[in-house]
Each structure stands twice: as structure tokens, then as C-alpha cells.
């Protein structure tokens, strides 16, 4: 039996995209391993979510218990540890997300199982499961081969593949909760919403986005002048918000915002996948970066390989003239 158990992720009553995306790879791998892809849902009040997942033509196993109302790594580790013993899946797959990264490495240590983290592709070749990962600012891919093990643990990158279309109706089966205790050591307290600033960049028509390539805050006028000339709002990468050049609510990416302006001008941004995830939806993307290998160019419509400080002031001047 080579079932691939996919832990569907959800938060505040909503399934997360990665839950569906994993179904783009799990069924094929499961087939090669002589089993099937099975979805696992752990939570409280899971009926609707279970039905939705089953709509992808898979069997959905549900552990439904008020104890799992909110994600808690300690509880998840306990439940999954018990379920691995019961179900003996060939692969346990979760998102490489704030949830997945918070318990999968601990689970791997506890059960002495191998882990491939932040996987972007999976293949089963000649009896060996292989995970593709991305490293070094996205410039190098690595293939990791698992040595034979009872269960392979994989965390899968959100946005690495496209979710499949919903298919035939699958089935839903409730499991007994193998872990009913409370955990004394870690407590979920509450969700805290991010602060709201003066501009909602998800509504902007044009965004001028800056990254670490801006170097220091005294260079801000260079981009502010461009933004003013074309009535754009300023946004940026995490590096730019961490440095305090722009407020936190202007951060674009997985831990920031997903934006969809008609024009996105990225300068001095390398294009880490966490950033790309937030701006791929822009209609037209312009990237200015002095590194020709920068991953930002993979999503750009117009690309300039050059020093932004040589290009941007001139660009601003020209755009003002053309008005």
C-alpha cells in the first residue's frame, strides 16, 4: 500500500490554496507507488470543507474535534504521529506554510522519518521517491532522493503548481480522534490582524515596488519621484519593509499582500518566490534589476537589466515630458 496522505490546510473556516495544489501532484505519485491519494482534514466542524475536498475525486478522512478548533503545532504533531501509526501512509504531505513548517520537522525527529522541506516537485523513479527543491535565491534546484523509509514526510511549496479542476465526487470518512487530551505547553491565544495603513495597495492601479536594491533610505526620493509622476503607490519586498523604508502594510508577497494592479514596476527586487506569489497577478510587470539571472525576470513583461539609479531618474523625466 502506497497511499499519499495529503493534509488539507485550513484557517478561519477556509481551505488554503495549497490544499488543492497538492492534489495536482499527489494522485500521480500515489499511483506510481501503488496506492491512492487520500486527503486528511483535522479540525472542528469540518463537514463543509470535507465535502469541498471530496469534490476533487478523492477519499477524505476527517478528524473532527473541538480540540482542533485552531491550529496548534503540539496537537497536530500528536495527532499525525498517531495517524501515521494507524494509516501507515507511504507519504505524508503538508503545505510548506506557517502550519507545515511548525510541526513537520518535529514530527520527523520524533518518528525518525526523513523530511524534504519546501518541495516544488515530486517523482517516483525506480522505487525511489525524489523531491525537487529550490535553493540559493531560486537560482539552483536540488534533487533529494529519499532512502527507503516507512513514511516519507514532505512539505510542499504553496504556489509551486496549479491546482487541478474539481473532478468526480469522492467520499468522506470520519476517523476516531486518536488524541483527545489538551496540551499543557502551548496555547493558541488569538489571531491578530495586521495594521491597516493609509493606502490599500490591493486596490492600487499602479505600483512602484522597491527592494533591497534601493540600498538605503536616503535613496527613496528616486522612486518617490517616479511614483508621483505616474500617480502610483509605493510598495515593496519584505526586505524593503523590514528595513523600514516603507510601512509593513505595503509589503507584497505571501506574508504581505497579493496585489493586482494594471502596472507593477519592480526595481531592485530579486523575485523570491514569496514575493512573486503576491504580484504575479499584475497585468503588466516591468522589472529593473542589474542581475540578469534575477528570478523577477521570469514573470516580467518588460525587462531592463541595469542599475536602477541610472535608469529610474531618466525614466521619471521622460514620463513627465510625455504627459
Amino acid at each position, binding site marked *: 500500500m502506497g497511499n499519499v496522505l495529503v493534509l488539507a490546510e485550513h484557517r478561519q473556516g477556509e481551505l488554503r490554496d495549497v490544499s488543492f495544489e497538492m492534489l495536482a501532484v499527489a494522485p500521480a505519485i500515489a499511483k506510481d507507488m501503488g496506492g491512492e491519494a487520500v486527503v486528511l482534514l483535522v479540525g472542528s466542524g469540518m463537514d463543509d470543507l470535507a465535502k469541498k475536498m471530496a469534490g476533487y475525486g478523492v477519499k477524505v478522512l476527517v478528524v473532527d474535534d473541538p480540540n482542533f478548533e485552531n491550529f496548534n*503545532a503540539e496537537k497536530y504533531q500528536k495527532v499525525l504521529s498517531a495517524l501515521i501509526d494507524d494509516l501507515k501512509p507511504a507519504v505524508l504531505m503538508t503545505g*510548506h506554510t*506557517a502550519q507545515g*513548517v*511548525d*510541526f*513537520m*520537522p*518535529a514530527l520527523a*525527529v520524533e518518528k525518525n522519518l*526523513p*523530511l*524534504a*522541506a519546501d518541495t516544488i516537485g515530486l517523482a517516483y523513479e525506480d522505487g525511489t521517491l*525524489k523531491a525537487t527543491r529550490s535553493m*540559493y*535565491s531560486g*537560482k*539552483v*534546484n*536540488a*534533487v*533529494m*532522493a*529519499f*532512502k527507503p*523509509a516507512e513514511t516519507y514526510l514532505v512539505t510542499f511549496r*504553496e504556489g509551486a503548481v496549479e491546482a487541478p479542476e474539481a473532478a468526480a465526487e469522492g467520499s468522506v470518512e470520519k476517523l476516531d480522534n486518536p488524541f483527545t487530551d489538551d496540551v499543557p*505547553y*502551548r*496555547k*493558541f*491565544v488569538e*489571531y*491578530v490582524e*495586521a495594521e491597516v495603513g493609509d493606502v490599500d495597495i490591493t486596490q492600487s492601479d499602479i505600483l512602484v515596488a522597491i527592494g533591497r536594491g534601493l540600498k538605503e533610505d536616503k535613496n527613496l526620493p528616486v522612486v518617490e519621484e517616479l511614483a508621483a509622476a*505616474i500617480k502610483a503607490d509605493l510598495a515593496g519586498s519584505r*526586505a524593503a*519593509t*523590514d528595513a523600514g523604508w516603507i510601512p509593513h*502594510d505595503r509589503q507584497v508577497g*505571501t*506574508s*504581505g*499582500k497579493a496585489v493586482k494592479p494594471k*502596472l507593477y514596476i519592480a526595481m531592485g527586487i530579486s523575485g523570491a518566490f514569496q514575493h512573486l506569489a503576491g504580484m504575479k497577478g499584475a497585468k503588466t510587470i*516591468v522589472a529593473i534589476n542589474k542581475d540578469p539571472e534575477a528570478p523577477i525576470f521570469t514573470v*516580467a513583461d*518588460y*525587462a*531592463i*537589466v*541595469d542599475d536602477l539609479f*541610472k*535608469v*529610474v531618474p*531618466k525614466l521619471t523625466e*521622460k*514620463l513627465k515630458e*510625455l504627459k
Partner: protein
Amino acid sequence: MKTLVCIKYVPDTSEAEVKVNPDGITVDDSRFSFDINDADNYAVEESVLLKEAHGGEVTVLSMGPKKSEVMIRMALAKGCDKAVRVEDDRVAGHDPLMVAKTLAGAIKGQEFDLVLTGCMASDDWHMSTGVALAEELGVNHASMVNYVEVMDGKVKVHRELEGGLLEAVELELPAVLTIQTGINEPRYAPIRGIRQAQKKELNVVSLDDLGIDPETVGMDASQVVLEKLYIPEVESTAEFIEGEPEEKAEKLASILQKGGLV
């Protein structure tokens, strides 16, 4: 407050061309500049802030080559008290579970309230070492932390979730926290600190010194094999605008204007 902070010496590849060596499993890092991993820099700052607020002592722990001592001294200059550098090429460095086991071996037996790590190393991107380390040490953990408040016998932290949402979590001490970038503003090392750092204790240890059986953290113990590295095809459909910087700017301006984009 006794804190350990784990830091890694990593190459800066954000602007560099990366080439895979003929062995297929390492990259040519001879021309990279190395420094402290971004998130670890914030972890160092957080450990020093905790010490300033609650007293105690901070120990720096790093596994890495001799040349990484510049980085370690810099952390000492910022206010950390002493350091341990593990150097042993028998550790399977490609597997965060083996790295975690080694770091745990260097911590075991010591008393601590908190171990801080970065949430992700910018070279290998595993985001796994800190959480694995917690399990090895048998203590609580929280990952992707961007706020820490020490309470009586416990900590309240904010974990960063996707989309800007945070999760407040309480943990009993001792605990491991993996620190996210942006949690604080890392300081520059003061001149005085830099001088003092030279005199602070920096122990260099091997697996044998730590009493770790190399068999338990080496290539044979690791259950994953790094089979190969390769440069992914860059599929760009972008129109690359050529010319001198000024020409490029002019061409782009007219494209944007003609396309009705501005």
C-alpha cells in the same frame, strides 16, 4: 534569562551568478561574499534585547568553518557573551535534521530558557532546523516569530501566518523560537563592543568533543541523499529593453505611454 542563539554563515547569492561544481552536488562559492544569515541577524538582536530587558547571558552557537569567526565575533560585539563554534565535516549538512541533532548535542546538558534560531537559512531554505532542534531538546517551540514577550515562566509570541495575519501563542519555557526578519532593528556593533569581543570566549569543538557519535549525524544516518544540483531553466517571455541606461529609460517610457499604462 539564559539564551542560546544559533547563527549560520551563508553566501550572498542575491546578485551573484551561481555555478554548480563538476561534482554536481556543490556550488562554486569561491567568489561569494559570506555573512550572517539575514533572519539570524534579527535573532541575535532579539537575544541581546532580551538580555538587556531581563538580564542573563547569551551564548552564540554556530556550525561552520574557521572563516565564520568574523561573524561570530560580530555577534559578540553586539552584546552576546560567549560562543561555541562546531566544526566537523562529518556532519551531513544537506539534511537539517542532522544539523539540528548536532546543534542539540552542543546544547544538551546546559541550562537555558530560550534558544533562538532564524526561521530560514537563505542558502538552503529548509525552514526546518529550529523546529527539529526543539524536538531533539524535548522542549516547546514556535516558528516564524515576529514578537516576543517574556512572562512568568512562559513567553507570549506572535507567529507570522500568510497574508499579514498573526497568531498569538503562549509557550512554557524553556522553548525554541525561530525568528522572522523584521522583528526588531538589528544594531550596528559599537566600536567598544568590537574591541571587547576579541576577548570573549569562543570555543571550537568537534563531534568528539561534544560526545556525539559521528554515525548518528553523518551521511549514513541521513535518510535523504542530495542527488544533484542544477540550474533551472529560466523561462522568461519578457521583452528585454536594450541600450545605454538612458536609451532604456526612454524606450520604456514610450512603451508605457503608448500602451496606455501610465
